[in-house]
């Protein structure tokens, strides 16, 4: 705050600090910095005739990235990006809507029962996405109660499954990303001071106002971590949308995956990845700029 006249001096980083940070730094260098640099380097290479990477500097991939293809400029990529944004946004929103009641329910349980709920949230998080997604495929199949109920209600033609379609996609996406939203949010909700909720109630606030003016600002730290942890991977998700959506709509994740597999165009895949990464970083830094007076310093 502005009341501190003398800013603390920048601490000197000694040998001990380097040693302590060493393993972490090594980890980050090996598994984050080097791959990222390799990716960026590859984005400026080009595809050889047989799909191999030709290490000659070229800006072709960047041109393709902003929409210039063989046949001039086309908005296809922008549509793909927008569609991915929409899917990620809806998934995130659904997760928020489910995570609030869920975490409030969890936080108001007895400690012993809380552990049980936490396990319920965490276990799917440990299960492979592909396995879980095929699980949904089975559950939503035409022979089982969910699809039969939907057919009985006239929502789908009799004898068909509940996939492929938006319902299946968002069901799969939401269940995949719910733990990413629920766990950070739970940390915030659990710390929420119950007294201030009562104070708000005592001060004539209706439930909506209590949420909007007290709960939301007080859980912003957990919520924003949850949103980032849901939105960012949801943007790049392709497994769930492919399997449950029937691969009808191309998303940025599918596109990248295709470049590395079927199309054997690693340099363009790298350029796309780089673009997605830049886009994500930009939106994250925008978020930081927007909240300068962040009251919880523990946040990012």
């Amino acid at each position, binding site marked *: *705050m502005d*009341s501190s006249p003398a800013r603390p001096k920048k601490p000197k980083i000694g040998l001990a600090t380097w040693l302590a940070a060493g393993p972490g730094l090594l980890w980050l260098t090996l598994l984050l910095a080097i791959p990222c640099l390799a990716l960026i380097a590859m984005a400026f290479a080009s595809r050889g005739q047989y799909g191999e990477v030709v290490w000659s500097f070229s800006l072709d991939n960047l041109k393709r990235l902003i929409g210039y293809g063989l046949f001039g400029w086309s908005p296809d990529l922008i549509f793909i990006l927008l569609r991915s944004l929409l899917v990620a946004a809806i998934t995130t929103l659904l997760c928020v809507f489910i995570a609030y009641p869920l975490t409030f329910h969890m936080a108001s349980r007895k400690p012993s029962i809380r552990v049980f709920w936490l396990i319920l949230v965490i276990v799917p998080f440990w299960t492979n996405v592909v396995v879980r997604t095929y699980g949904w495929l089975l559950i939503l199949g035409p022979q089982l109660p969910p699809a039969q109920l939907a057919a009985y209600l006239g929502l789908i033609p009799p004898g068909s499954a509940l996939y492929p379609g938006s319902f299946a996609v968002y069901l799969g996406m939401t269940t995949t990303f719910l733990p990413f939203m629920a766990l950070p949010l739970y940390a915030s909700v659990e710390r929420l*001071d119950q*007294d*201030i909720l*009562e*104070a*708000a*109630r*005592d*001060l*004539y*606030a*209706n439930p909506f*106002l209590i949420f909007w*003016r*007290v709960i939301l*600002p*007080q859980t912003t730290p957990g919520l924003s971590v949850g949103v980032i942890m849901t939105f960012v991977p949801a943007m790049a998700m392709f497994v769930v949308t492919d399997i449950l959506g029937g691969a009808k709509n191309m998303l940025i994740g599918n596109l990248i995956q295709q470049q590395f597999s079927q199309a054997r165009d690693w340099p363009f895949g790298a350029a796309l990845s780089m673009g997605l990464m830049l886009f994500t970083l930009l939106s994250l830094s925008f978020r930081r700029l927007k909240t300068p007076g962040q*009251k919880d310093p523990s946040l990012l």
Partner: protein
Amino acid sequence: MVAQVNKSFGNHRVLNDVSLAVSKGEFFTLLGPSGCGKTTLLRLIAGLESVDSGMVFLGGQDVTAVPANKRQVNTVFQSYALFPHFNVIENIAFGLKARKFAPSEINSRVNRMLEMLKLEDFGKRFPNQLSGGQKQRVALARALVNEPSVLLLDEPMSALDPHLRTQVQAELLDLHRKIDTTFVMVTHDQSEAMFMGGRLAVMKDGQMVQIGAPREVYSRPKNKFVAEFLWGANILPATREGDWLMTTLGPLKTEDRVTWSEGHLAIRPELIVLEDRPERAKDNFVQATVIQTIYRGPSVELLLDPGPVKVVTSPRFNPQPGETVSLFIPPADLVALESQAA
């Protein structure tokens, strides 16, 4: 205010047929040890807790079914419960904004509160930049700005440094005098309850034990619990024989009406008179041996046998352990306690 209210949490009955009437503008204090149900009673009045049975009235109207956010009652919470993400002004304005008051009205009311509670210089500060006393004043302002018909205070002094308390208690009384709102305060601190000067209710195990003015409750405790809870009176087991009450100190007389044949008497340590001329012996004069003398400065405390009986007297006296002293127990101050069911 509340009539025959019952409340249980699980199998634990927190309030047992509690009734209480507080008049408009009164400063009423609920006093009792922790776990006696006084805070629950306060929360029932605020609407933060619902009654199992019984009714809650405010200004003659039945508000039992009215939710907290629609009751004309505001609370100063024990932890103050200020909104950490709002500054002082925003905290105070919260209740008015929730009820959609006009901005100009909000402004003038908030400013009046800032002034009344000497918070003018802190309007833009956040709760974590305030001292305990300032936080408490913000909590008071945040509640009073709504002009509630009743202000509830839940142990408002407990989070303050002890040396601040007396000052803040005086300020609170002063505030009450100025604004003419009904105050209901919960405390476990007997001297705080006395200090506030208004009527007080002593609670125990979810029941009202005694309601009255401080002087009345202190000098005429109804039963053993009240006599002991308020600075520990001397309790003497006694049996009645005609007009006399036989105690370990000897036969005593009281001006109270005694309804039992076997029960307890109470006498305040400072109301026992140390008699230095034992030859004047008459009714209610007894002899006792000094066990211990504690010099307290403004007073001297004697522990006497049989009993042990405690006497608080002028520091002029200085009897040594083993010495025999004569005591006069004024019949008007000797209280016959009700036999205690609770």
